[in-house]
């Protein structure tokens, strides 16, 4: 294991994290919300730790070979380190009492989950809430991708780190050079964020709220500055603006880049994106039909709430404008389904991802077809390109691991005393990086009442889900440490 490489990477990321604490620090000074000292402490500790790591791991051999496994381990450990240091402001703040709470909130932020243990959000310091939104924004596109875009430091091994953080099942490199690709992704991301801030501001949201919500919509995060989430505003305009940006965030970012380069039909031509859009639309219509009459009298209301909940869950954002636990059974099951499907590969969303679901369905169909025509030759293809058997195997393995972790974690959570709906819902919401679950962790409640062990377990689930299982799980394989 190349500890020097790991140390240096983590060191650089911590410095970056420390620097980004300047934003909430500035906010604290501006609003006089009493969190200035807290952020100074957190910033000092993070920068100090980062610099010490960099100094300790100096003189990296520029020709050193970084294997794929080392890349994965580095990314996994880097995420753990960043989440721990990102939890410092929460831990130091009076709003959080235990370490488990602070770490849960931080992991929930960086992994863009949006599950919260804060019960009195409006009462918290404004700078702390900004930090909560900012870490979602940083985690959304990926901390490694960010560092690749702004710092040219990862020349060696950068490619391995990128692959470990963005393990996309579809080829998605935009330009020959990694740093250029990362820059493009961040420019698109930043552009959409600014546009959303403007559109929310134009609709009458305050600057502070608009920034916070844009910071948590684009990474499909879901933290809000209000206890009641987006429902607090009760505005049709905000609902639809946010739906639009959630959909954009759930689409592969390389398609946005192609769109900007003047290919208007790219969303339709890409089969994954088409699948994602049609699926979201169908589910919205079915749920509208289910809600119309029973829950909402007017069709427009049913459509408004159905579209918001479907998009919020399928893109794994997790904002709420209605308590879907009061919806009829069909709508609830559809939302649970959405939690598993997730957004497109290459987007900021989580879940299993549409591309994998598509490959899996096509593969199953091919197997059935082969029984009927044993000599038939057919290949699973996406976007007209054949999917290799190695990739299909890796996707099937992913599904198996995903469901396996889901089942085991649910059992563990139930063993800690949670009821059926809560256990199933909380794990689905965390591993899919969504936010609200079902039962006692639904959109109207939060995760504060869970036992500390449950919070640690769910924090781990969120990280595993964000890094798409393999990157995290190898740390638990005994062979990895032996070899």
């Amino acid at each position, binding site marked *: 294991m190349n500890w020097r490489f790991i140390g240096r990477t983590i060191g650089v990321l911590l410095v970056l994290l420390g620097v980004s604490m300047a934003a909430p620090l500035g906010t604290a000074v501006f609003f006089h919300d009493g969190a200035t000292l807290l952020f100074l402490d957190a910033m000092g500790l993070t920068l100090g730790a980062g610099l010490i790591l960099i100094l300790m791991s100096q003189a990296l051999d*520029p*020709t050193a070979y970084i294997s*794929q496994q080392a890349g994965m381990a580095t990314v996994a450990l880097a995420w753990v380190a960043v989440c721990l240091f990102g939890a410092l402001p929460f831990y130091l703040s009076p709003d959080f009492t235990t370490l488990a709470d602070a770490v849960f909130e931080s992991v929930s932020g960086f992994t863009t989950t949006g599950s919260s243990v804060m019960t009195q959000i409006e009462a918290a310091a404004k700078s702390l809430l900004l930090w909560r939104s900012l870490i979602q924004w940083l985690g959304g596109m990926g901390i490694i991708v960010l560092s690749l875009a702004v710092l040219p430091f990862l020349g060696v091994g*950068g*490619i391995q780190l990128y*692959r470990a953080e963005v393990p996309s099942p579809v080829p998605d*490199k935009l*330009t*020959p*050079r*990694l740093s*250029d690709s990362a820059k493009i992704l961040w420019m698109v991301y930043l552009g959409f964020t600014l546009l959303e801030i403007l559109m929310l501001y134009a609709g009458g949201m305050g600057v502070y709220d608009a920034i916070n919500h844009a910071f948590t919509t684009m990474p499909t995060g879901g933290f809000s500055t209000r206890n009641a989430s987006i429902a607090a505003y009760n505005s049709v305009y905000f609902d639809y603006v946010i739906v639009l940006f959630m959909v954009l965030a759930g689409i592969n970012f390389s398609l946005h880049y192609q769109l900007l380069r003047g290919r208007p039909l790219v969303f339709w031509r890409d089969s994954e994106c088409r699948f994602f859009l049609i699926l979201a639309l169908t589910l919205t219509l079915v749920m509208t039909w289910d809600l119309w009459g029973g829950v909402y009298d007017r069709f427009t209301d049913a459509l408004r709430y159905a579209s918001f909940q479907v998009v919020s869950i399928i893109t794994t954002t997790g904002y709420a404008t209605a308590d879907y636990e009061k919806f009829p059974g069909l709508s609830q099951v559809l939302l649970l389904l959405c939690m598993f499907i997730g957004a497109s590969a290459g987007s900021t969303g989580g879940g299993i991802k549409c591309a994998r679901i598509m490959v899996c369905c096509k593969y199953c169909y091919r197997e059935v077809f082969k029984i009927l025509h044993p000599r038939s030759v057919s290949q699973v293809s996406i976007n007209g*390109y054949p999917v*290799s058997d190695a990739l299909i195997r890796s996707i099937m393995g992913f599904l198996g691991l995903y469901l396996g972790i889901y089942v085991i974690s649910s059992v563990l959570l139930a063993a800690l005393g949670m009821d059926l709906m809560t256990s199933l819902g909380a794990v689905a919401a965390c591993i899919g990086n969504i936010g609200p679950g079902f039962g006692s962790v639904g959109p109207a409640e939060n995760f504060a009442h869970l036992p500390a062990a449950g919070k640690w377990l769910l924090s781990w689930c969120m990280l595993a889900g964000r890094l798409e299982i393999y990157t995290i799980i190898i740390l638990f394989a005994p062979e990895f440490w032996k070899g």
Partner: protein
Amino acid sequence: MRILIIGAGEVGYNIASRLASENKKVTVIDKDEAAIRRLSENLDVQSIRASATSPKTLIEAGIKESQILLAVTDSDEVNLVTCLLSRHMAPEIKMLARVRNAELDDFHQRFRKAAPHIDTIINPETEVVGTIRRLMHIPGAVDVGDFVEGKVSYAGLRIPKSSKMVGMSMSAFSTRFDKDHPLIAAILRNTQVIVPRGDTRFHANDLIYIICEKKDLEEKLNLFGLGHKPVKTALVIGGGRIGERLSRTLVEDGIKTKIIETDLTRCNELSQEISGALVLHGDGSDQSLLLEENIGQTDVVVPVTDDDETNILISLLAKSMGARDTITKIGKTNYHPLLPAIGIDKVVSPRLSAISSILQDVRKGKVLSDISIFGEQGEFIEAIALDRSSITGKPIKKITFPKGTLLLCVIQEGQVIIPTGDTVVDPGNRLLLFAVNHAVKKLETLLSVKFTRKE
């Protein structure tokens, strides 16, 4: 600079790897999934798995935005068709193609002048035959070559255990030979490249690279006790494309040449094609055949079969049976670090030859030629000093050269000058430099023009 490479085989992979490490934007196209996976897992390049002879693929790979196209697949047909297509789609692009078929040799000129107007055609076999010939003429050297249109030569020499140089420091070495001493550019110790300084000491078994004017080369080699013994007889083992081409040139050079080939039909072809050579039918690793043909009296044995392991074994066998010298063709670069340990020094590789020819074509900053040594751990770079670049207009001692680089000589008005601290490089001078692999990028910055880049 955007570069499009067709073919992710050994040549394509190595070139992509080198160019990517120099921060160039590289896109590679290949049909083979395993090759593409190896590439995308290890290198910072864009890879596309598709057929390069499809216009759609070429557009997708950005041929219109690319400046250079390198068609280096194993198939001449694919390379030529890709070039033909690309010329239509991007008339301005600079193209280089690898064309191996000897029958097409006569067409190279026509491919350049008429469609598809390929700028450079590389034939790895021709390159390797050239290398073998050069090595034959200087028996003591492990590696030889020319720069500056043949004015300056380099030679790689192995220091034997018995040599007086073992333990001597660089400064002692220069005092001893005074002004006549040959310039030592680099030392390869085990697998490590060392750019020598005054206090660097020679070890036994070091491979040293010396630079001198071509006319002085023999004289300098005599200093090391490695004089010139002309080759009169040669035994080529393996009658493939390289074997045939090599034998023909050797016969033309007036060397008594024998070829051993296992396939009888091929032997018949060879005996008709090459009139001056003796064609033998048999196995090149057959001791009795080698004895029969009096291998102990042969000046040089050159195994060039398609099988690396066979070539290595034949060389070892020939040496043990008394052959004066062997030159071994080895394709797998993985083997190179091991070879000195088993006593095989003179090694040629068609791929390495092709790679260094291609790289010299791609470099910016008006690099005229560069030659990779040590299995690509370092390279000689020949360049023209550009006006406004950091290297001109001040004495050399005031220039900070990147670590791992060395300015070897400056050619001013046809004169070869070994630079001292006070030498000033004028714009337009030719320079010869050495750089270890990871310093090449920095050296390029030093050589290129500041602020305004014209490409």
